[in-house]
């Protein structure tokens, strides 16, 4: 066995140029997969983090039927006894914070221009425990519970040509479908670097919204933090277990993924595209190995004949070529890992600044600099992939070599 490995290793070295080509074919794939997976994982982690930090929290509760009509942000489908429910959920060990909200459709005007917006009435203190709100303020200050003020995004401020301290008219329909408006002072301007939020969202205190929308203390949404998006399912299950069946009949408890369908679908389709692309590259590498190793078999026919003549079995011949493929694969895997790790480390520690145009085309809240998140999975995966590719590439030439008739092999020039 050791002898076959020894001969195989020396043959790999002997056919340097071809071995290098085979090694490059496999290692380039491994390098690309290791680096790309790290980058893509970073992207996903960042997206999930930002979606939950900026938009959804980890778990949301609505009254039954609200989500079906969420597009119109209905003010008449509300959570019953929302304060009691909030207090009950707040006490659960896997829940770190709970905040009540009113989502409403409206528009803001500077007396010259009017822009439609998605309004969110919040409990400022509790909201800040779940979402990145205070830290997103780039001008002015965050809201207080009793403020008659508003937070708007920097893009919206630019579109309306307004700043902190200016006043806006906020229009909406009340719970009873009557029109209402309120004059609010711009207390702060936020920036998430995510156009969808910076252009379309406004935040006002829940107390002000209760009067303005004539809600009578009702809210149509409750958001919950589990501390981290990894703990979502645990918190979600705990809430479902803790609440009585009667309560659960009247509400819908949803994990954040239910509100990020677009992102989840994007991730799935991106993953499929990448598997197809890497699949094609790996298939090309396998065909490359089959070609170069078949040339080796043809060139070494007489040697194969000699080995068969002196007593090596067909299996032994096949082994030598398969071992050559395995050694080539292992070298390629190590080289691919090494260079893949270098790029992955660069992405992890230095990050990759994304161009400004990029943010105009994405519907996922991601940071301006993307960081890699390396994992053991891509190393295990590429290790298996590299070996399988090398073995498939080596199998057919090895079989061809083993099947040669000894006399024919000896007579090959």
């Amino acid at each position, binding site marked *: 066995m050791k*002898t076959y490995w020894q*001969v195989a290793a020396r043959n790999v070295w*002997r056919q340097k140029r071809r071995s290098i080509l085979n090694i490059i074919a496999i290692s380039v794939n491994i390098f690309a997969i290791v680096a790309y997976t790290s980058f893509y994982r970073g992207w996903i982690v960042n997206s999930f983090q930002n979606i939950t930090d900026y938009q959804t929290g980890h778990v949301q509760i609505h009254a039954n039927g609200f989500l079906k009509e969420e597009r119109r942000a209905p003010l008449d489908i509300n959570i019953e006894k929302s304060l009691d429910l909030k207090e009950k959920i707040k006490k659960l060990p896997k829940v770190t914070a709970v905040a009540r909200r009113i989502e409403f459709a409206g528009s803001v005007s500077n007396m010259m221009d009017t822009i439609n917006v998605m309004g969110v009435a919040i409990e400022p203190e509790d909201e800040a425990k779940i979402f990145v709100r205070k830290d997103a303020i780039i001008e002015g200050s965050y809201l207080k519970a009793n403020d008659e003020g508003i937070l708007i995004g920097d893009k919206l401020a630019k579109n309306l040509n307004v700043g902190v301290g200016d006043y806006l008219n906020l229009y909406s329909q009340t719970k009873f479908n009557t029109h209402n408006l309120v004059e609010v002072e711009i207390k702060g301007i936020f920036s998430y670097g995510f156009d969808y939020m910076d252009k379309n969202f406004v935040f006002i205190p829940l107390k002000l919204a209760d009067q303005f929308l004539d809600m009578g203390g009702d809210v149509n949404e409750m958001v919950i933090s589990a501390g981290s998006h990894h703990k979502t399912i645990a918190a979600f299950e705990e809430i479902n277990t803790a609440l009585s069946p009667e309560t659960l009949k009247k509400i819908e408890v949803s994990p954040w993924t239910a509100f990020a369908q677009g992102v989840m679908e994007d991730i799935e389709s991106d993953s499929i595209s990448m598997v197809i692309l890497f699949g094609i590259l790996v298939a090309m590498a396998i065909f490359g190995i089959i070609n170069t190793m078949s040339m080796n078999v043809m060139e070494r026919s*007489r040697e194969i004949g*000699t080995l068969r003549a*002196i*007593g*090596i079995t067909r299996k032994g011949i096949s082994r030598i070529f398969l071992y050559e493929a395995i050694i080539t694969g292992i070298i390629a895997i190590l080289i691919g890992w090494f260079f893949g790790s270098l790029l992955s480390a660069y992405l992890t520690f230095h990050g990759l600044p994304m161009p400004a145009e990029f943010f105009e085309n994405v519907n996922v809240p991601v940071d301006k600099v993307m960081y890699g998140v390396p994992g053991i999975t891509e190393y295990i995966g590429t290790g298996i992939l590299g070996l399988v590719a090398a073995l498939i590439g080596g199998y057919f030439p090895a079989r061809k070599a083993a099947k040669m008739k*000894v006399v024919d092999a*000896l007579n090959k020039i």
Partner: protein
Amino acid sequence: MSLIHINKVSKDYHLGKTIVHALTDININIEKGDFIAVAGPSGSGKTTLLNLIGTLDTPTAGEIIFEERNVSNLPDREATRVRATKLGFIFQTFNLVPVLNVFENVEFPLLINERDNAENRKDVTELLTRVGLEQYQKHRPDELSGGQRQRVAIARALINKPMLILADEPTANLDSKTGENIVDIMLKMNKELGTTFIFSTHDPKVVRHATKKIYLVDGQVDKVEGNNQS
């Protein structure tokens, strides 16, 4: 004592629609310890005969009895086993494994027979000394002359202590002096170790060293000289 009995052996090759009769109705008896030259012009069937005896090929008709066993149509695995344990081969173009050094080339048949032990490794050194290559043990084949390579091939053929060594034109790629030297070494091994040798050649100067000469013409035995002439 008969080592090999070749009984009415024929070998045909099909080249497209043409049938080439490489050997026709060959009957030869080979005794243990023989040093046999198979002589004849190119295309007379020398290599075909050696291939059949060496279980590298199978006859179209007839049988080859080796140590009282019919080896003419053995399954591949058994034929390989016979070659590994009972036979040694020397080729015209030396056919050493280029990635192995001299010592490893000679040792290789031991390793594939899983007889790699200190005793056998001592045999390698001893055989290399016998063929005068003890100082070339670490050399690669491409660092040796033709004569030296053929001496390595002889040592490799002998390492498993085979009953029979088949040498196909062992001197054809060597100058006449080196060729004679190779035949002398084979003769020495034949005498000292008692190994049976069958070698093919078309060189009369080489033939004269043989104790028995089988002349082939057009795939048939033309005449047999020496020993009991069977």
